[in-house]
């Protein structure tokens, strides 16, 4: 088994409490960061570690922090994206449940590095129990002096708040998250301006995923080189892969970045359930283009998956077996994105509803010749034309399913005469 970094304490009883966490060498990273390092040194270390965002886009965290203006007469904010809405993704919830103080430590170091004194954890509404656990952890951290005024006598102040979302997928998109946090309808904003300059309450804002921030204390304690060794030089560290679908042992697996997809499915996750044949894999959350059974000899890192014309996304691996109808998969995808489209921009609002209606009609046995070509055409008209990434997130899996499983989909049409 690979070395566990983020999930090391998952099996330790009550590791979510601050006493056990400290007993297991917790909160040492903030001691080092706040007492021995300057914000610039932290930024350089995180940049050197090539820590790429774990939310989906894979943007280097250090570079993102570097975009925030150093001197500005406004407050700066950290928004922690705990919306975890990408279908198939269930990794952040485990970090927050089992190791909330690792996250808080990451939040403290990142805030110190960027000069932030207020952090918001935007957590999806469904994670009510987890939100309570975070609240408890935050209270413990305040009591120990790790949050609040003059943390560890460093003069650095930080307040952390938990904010629950109301159940919209789009609020996981960073600018929609900001709108929602401001109390508005969760519609994505037009970029530029980017949140690093104009974000929450029109102030410079950093938005990072839970897993991304949880890696920060490890980088501070062990250094950038160590971190890169745990993964790849250009893509450091481990990933918590969430494997779901028709595998023998679904669950989360923390593995080095670059672990082959095939190994994750057939070794770590125990192979196919009931010995069924593998048909397809969605490798990075539902918005990632689907891979066929022949395409799983791919390393699970950002660049390799881009080369395979898919994406690592949130590292959520959805395994589909021979008995699963790709029309049903397509239907699910189309239903999800048309339901979750915020509705503000034309191609996403109408295009996704159009595809959903067509796929529903096909599934109801009323498919017509030309339907698949039309779905491809409509999805292509969404791709790259929308205001936020949701349009692409819908178009990419729809295009890959229709193109790679065209024969199967056509059989549904032909089957109905």
């Amino acid at each position, binding site marked *: 088994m690979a070395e566990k970094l983020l999930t090391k304490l998952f099996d330790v009883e009550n590791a979510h409490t601050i006493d056990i966490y400290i007993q297991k060498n917790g909160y040492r990273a903030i001691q080092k960061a706040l007492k021995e390092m300057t914000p610039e040194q932290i930024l350089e270390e995180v940049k050197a570690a090539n820590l790429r965002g774990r939310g989906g886009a894979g943007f280097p965290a250090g570079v993102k922090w570097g975009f925030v203006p150093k001197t500005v007469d406004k407050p700066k904010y950290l928004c922690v994206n705990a919306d975890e809405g990408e279908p198939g993704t269930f990794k952040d919830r485990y970090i927050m449940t089992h190791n909330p103080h690792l996250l808080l430590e990451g939040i403290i170091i990142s805030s110190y590095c960027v000069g932030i004194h207020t952090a918001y954890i935007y957590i999806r509404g469904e994670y009510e129990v987890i939100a309570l656990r975070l609240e408890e952890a935050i209270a413990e951290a305040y009591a120990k002096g790790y949050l609040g005024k003059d943390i560890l006598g460093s003069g650095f102040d930080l307040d952390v708040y938990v904010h629950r979302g109301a159940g*919209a997928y789009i609020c996981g998109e960073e600018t929609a998250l900001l709108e929602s946090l401001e109390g508005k309808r969760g519609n994505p904003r037009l970029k530029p301006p980017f949140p690093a300059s104009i974000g929450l309450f029109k102030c410079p804002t950093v938005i990072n995923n839970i897993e991304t921030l949880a890696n920060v204390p490890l980088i501070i304690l062990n250094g950038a080189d160590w971190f890169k060794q745990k993964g790849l030089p250009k893509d450091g560290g481990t990933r918590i892969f969430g494997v779901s679908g028709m595998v023998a042992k679904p669950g989360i697996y923390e593995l080095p970045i670059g672990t082959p997809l095939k190994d994750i499915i057939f070794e770590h996750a125990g192979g196919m359930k009931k010995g069924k044949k593998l048909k397809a894999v969605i490798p990075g959350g539902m918005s990632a283009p689907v891979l066929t059974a022949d395409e799983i000899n791919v390393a699970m890192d950002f660049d390799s998956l881009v080369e395979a014309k898919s994406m690592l996304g949130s590292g959520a691996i959805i395994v589909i077996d021979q008995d699963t109808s790709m029309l049903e998969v397509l239907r699910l995808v189309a239903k999800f994105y048309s339901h979750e489209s915020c*509705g*503000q921009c*034309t191609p996403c*609002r109408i295009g996704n509803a159009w595809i959903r*209606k067509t796929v529903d009609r096909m599934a109801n046995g009323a498919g017509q010749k030309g*339907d698949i070509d039309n779905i491809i055409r409509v999805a292509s008209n969404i791709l*790259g034309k929308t*205001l936020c990434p949701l349009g692409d997130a819908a178009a990419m899996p729809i295009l890959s399913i229709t193109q790679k499983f065209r024969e199967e989909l056509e059989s549904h049409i032909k089957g109905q005469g």
Partner: protein
Amino acid sequence: MVKIFIDEKPVETKEGATIFKAAQEAGIPIPHLCYHPAFEPEGTCRMCLVEIEGVPKLELACSTQVREGMKIFTRNERVVEARKGVLEFLCAEHPLDCPICDQAGECKLQDYYEEYGLFDSQFREVKEKRRKKAQIAKNLIHDQERCVLCRRCVRFLREVTGTREMGVFERGNHTEVNILDEINIDNNYSGNLAEICPVGAITDSDFRFKTRSWFLAEGDSICPHCSRGCSVSIHYNSAFHRFPVPKRVFRVNSRTNPDINGYWICDIGRYAYPYIDKNRCDKIIFNNDNTQLSWESAIPLIAKKMRRLKDMDNTSHLAIIMNTWLTNEELFLLKKLFVDYFQAENIFFVDPPHGEADDVLLTAERTPNRKGAVEIGFDLRPLDWSELSGNTDILLIFGSFLTGQTDSGEVKTHLDKIETKILLTPHSSDLDALMDIILPTAVIPEKSGSLTNVDGIVQEFAPVLEGIGESQPEWKILIDLAKLMNADFSVKTFTSPAVILEEMGKEIAFFKKRQ
């Protein structure tokens, strides 16, 4: 300045300008629905996507700022295909009711479809059923099926009136803009919503089903209903109708003027237009006997009466009631003729009563030219019957504003004491029966001249409509009268309001043309 290339044409534009603005200045139109110059770009309709050399994705023209040397393509194949794609989406869920839609002919969606689309629909699905005819204000009807969700209405109510009556509801394909809890839009600017709606989703119940936009011609004018003097466009019937049309003007829209009204007008100004066609006085009326008067006989008759007073040094026997619907030129002529030359003292002003101002455009003054009258030298003395001397022989009244303001019995008692009462008015009213001579005059859209708004901006305007019946603009009547009264100013050279305004500039510093 920044040099860019739009469709390979070199264009110079301001630093920080958007591609949309730069293209617009260069005369290159870029299709758009959600973009409106009054608001920050939202970038949601996706109609304005253009290609920028070196940028992989198509970018929004409405929000992307130009950079030195940027090469932009607004109508190459890739851009046109993207535009068609967006149009196809918009049309997929759009009803095919152009033949009964009031927006037809001036609908952006219809225009763009003709320009870029003209494709056969590939949409084989069932269109969403949405609310077709919802009253969202006393003057507005909302059709959810026609809405393209540009949110101009929502932004208008948020940013201009601040009343926020509309919002965005639901999500995805069920997204709609709507009022909340059936509480109607109720503000003095609601008519702008129908005007800025790029499609027929918000229509004006005042205009609905009355005519077709292509029967209408447009003319630039100034709104006379308060002293803001907003720029307006008068839309009037210009074409053959199968059925007789009872009116000429069908609506008044705002006309962009950054110095005065921006992009908007208020509902008072928008919906007051029936005054142009309703109750018009179109004939010279001589109440005393049955003699038929013409301009050729009426003006000499009046001039003679006035000259007699002047010759007998009885100038105090003349009283004049003016108003500030009169133009600068007309008030100037009145000043020259009656104050300077005739030496009349009994000059009063009767205007419609003041109303309440708001903090958007509407002012308290409900006439267009009180500021002009003051600059010309009038003190705007209100009418006081007791001050109207007992020996008044001739009373000259401009406008019919006495009606409705004073008790009609009281007016009659006072007027009965005066020998000759002459009314110059565009509108028939109760006052007519108390007059000896009634001369029909023009309304502002029928004449030319200038008005001075509350902020002292002098705005010239030209006639949009022809005069009605025998009516004549007041300036012309006054010039004719002045000639026959042997007035001592160069009235013969006063051939048009423009000439008069120029003369005014020489005599009154305020009216000197500012460069």
